[in-house]
């Protein structure tokens, strides 16, 4: 197998872009919490870069992509990057070094558990969080990644399509967020006190970095440079734009005022939602999907109050709802004209794909929910999940890290 250095260039760029998304997420979330929790919130994303990077090298990658065990998980023969070298592994990417594929996948593994933290913002005990990161990534992320993308994975074998991580990244974390919000319980004062975002300019900056990095996330998932990457690139941008408009429109329509946080939230919803579909649909379809995503996720977020859980930064409503819709939309809009390696959806005459996609959403949802629930319950019993009430009042920055974000 010969390496195509142009593909490699593209993958290095993409990987760097995806790496930037994790700090982007840190800012996106950090701006939405109260001032006293800003560092603690940023840290939950930032430290995932540390923890998951090593986890991935030492066992995570091998579990997710290593030689298949019973269609559900990789074995540990690639642990510590054994056998993961500079020659391509044509099973995953024929034109770039195997290590390039590994590091690019690492960035996905890093951001996924960080996404969950939005649901349990302002109350997660840091020590427990570190352990949660390791457990979740090992027992939830790795299996799902293997099912959907790993050679031998059962969903992949069944024909599930997930271009850039709709199932693996967004549905898995969106659903885990639901479980986490329920197990951890509400923030002190939730529903009663006023808990406004402390700095929306930080959130907007984070959203901008996420959007920028998402070009690497989606277009990089082509694993080569070329027209497929370009299509994913264009779809990503168009869906984000469309969803930010439609979310804004909903706010205008329902409350008379379009908010800036709404426009940014819409963009993220569009990005999360188009992720699974980015390399299977046309730009016009991406716009339609984006418009639906803005409306749907606006509604998803608005519903939160009715269910009574405190998904603090709306991970369920945005990532869970958004990417589930996107994954299902593949079953409608996918066309082999865009990606010969994909299949046609309902609108192109193929009925079966839609069912597979819906089934896969259900499977991943149940698995992620149950596993996350079990992990958290176990941690609750042993280490404790939440900071003490007094620490919560004081804020994570002081209680967990002994620092203050600002000394103005």
């Amino acid at each position: 197998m010969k390496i195509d250095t142009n593909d490699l260039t593209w993958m290095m760029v993409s990987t760097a872009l995806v790496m930037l998304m994790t700090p982007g997420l840190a800012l996106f979330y950090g701006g939405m919490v109260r001032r006293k929790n800003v560092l603690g919130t940023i840290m939950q994303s930032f430290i995932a870069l540390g923890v998951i990077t090593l986890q991935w090298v030492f066992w995570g990658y091998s579990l997710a992509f290593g030689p298949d065990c019973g269609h559900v998980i990789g074995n540990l023969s690639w642990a510590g990057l054994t056998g993961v070298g500079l020659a391509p592994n044509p099973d995953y990417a024929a034109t770039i070094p195997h290590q390039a594929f590994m590091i690019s996948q690492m960035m996905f593994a890093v951001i996924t558990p960080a996404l969950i933290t939005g649901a349990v913002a302002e109350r997660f005990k840091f020590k427990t969080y570190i352990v949660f990161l390791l457990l979740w990534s090992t027992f939830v992320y790795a299996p799902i990644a293997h099912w959907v993308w790993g050679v031998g994975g059962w969903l992949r074998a069944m024909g599930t399509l997930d271009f850039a991580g709709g199932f693996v990244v967004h549905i898995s974390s969106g659903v885990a967020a639901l479980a986490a919000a329920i197990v951890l319980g509400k923030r002190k004062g939730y529903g009663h006190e006023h808990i406004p975002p402390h700095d929306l300019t930080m959130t907007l900056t984070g959203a901008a970095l996420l959007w920028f990095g998402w070009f690497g996330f989606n277009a990089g998932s082509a694993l080569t440079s070329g027209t497929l990457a370009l299509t994913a690139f264009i779809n990503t941008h168009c869906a984000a734009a469309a969803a930010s408009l439609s979310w804004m429109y909903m706010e205008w329509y329902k409350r008379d005022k379009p908010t800036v946080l709404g426009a940014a939230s819409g963009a993220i919803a569009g990005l999360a939602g188009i992720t699974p579909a980015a390399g299977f649909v046309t730009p016009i379809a991406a716009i339609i999907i984006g418009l639906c995503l803005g409306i749907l996720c606006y509604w998803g977020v608005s519903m939160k109050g009715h269910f009574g859980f405190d998904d603090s930064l709306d991970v369920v409503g945005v990532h869970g709802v958004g990417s589930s819709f996107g994954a299902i939309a593949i079953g409608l809009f996918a066309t082999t004209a865009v990606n010969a390696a994909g299949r046609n959806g309902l609108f192109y005459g193929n009925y079966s794909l839609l069912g597979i996609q819906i089934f896969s959403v259900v499977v991943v949802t149940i698995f992620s929910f149950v596993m996350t629930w079990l992990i958290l319950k176990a941690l609750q019993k042993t280490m404790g999940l939440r900071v003490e009430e007094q620490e919560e009042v004081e804020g994570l920055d002081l209680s967990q890290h002994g620092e203050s974000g600002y000394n103005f």
Partner: protein
Amino acid sequence: MKKVEAIVRPHAVDDIREALQEAGFRGMTLQEVKGFGRQKGHTEVYRGAEYQVDFLPKVKLEIVVPDGRVEEAVSIIIRIAKTGKVGDGKIFILPVEEAIRVRTDETGDEAL
């Protein structure tokens, strides 16, 4: 008229405001302040250098009331602000000679 100055914990403020409003006090003014007292501060660490932060965030609530309503205001504030732990704060009563409403030039208790 008296000025009731209450220095309390920040998170008690919304409830105090509500309780005072219900009792018919229609105006007050609020500031974020830093307090120093018996309550211990905390330690912050920046790259290994430890700092003792002695001043704690408090809120100072100022409400000017007619002479007859001082006790009522004070008791409402105490009721809500009291947790029984060190750092609950203080209330000071100061004399006010005159109050004027800028909008209408009303003076005295009328102006409150």
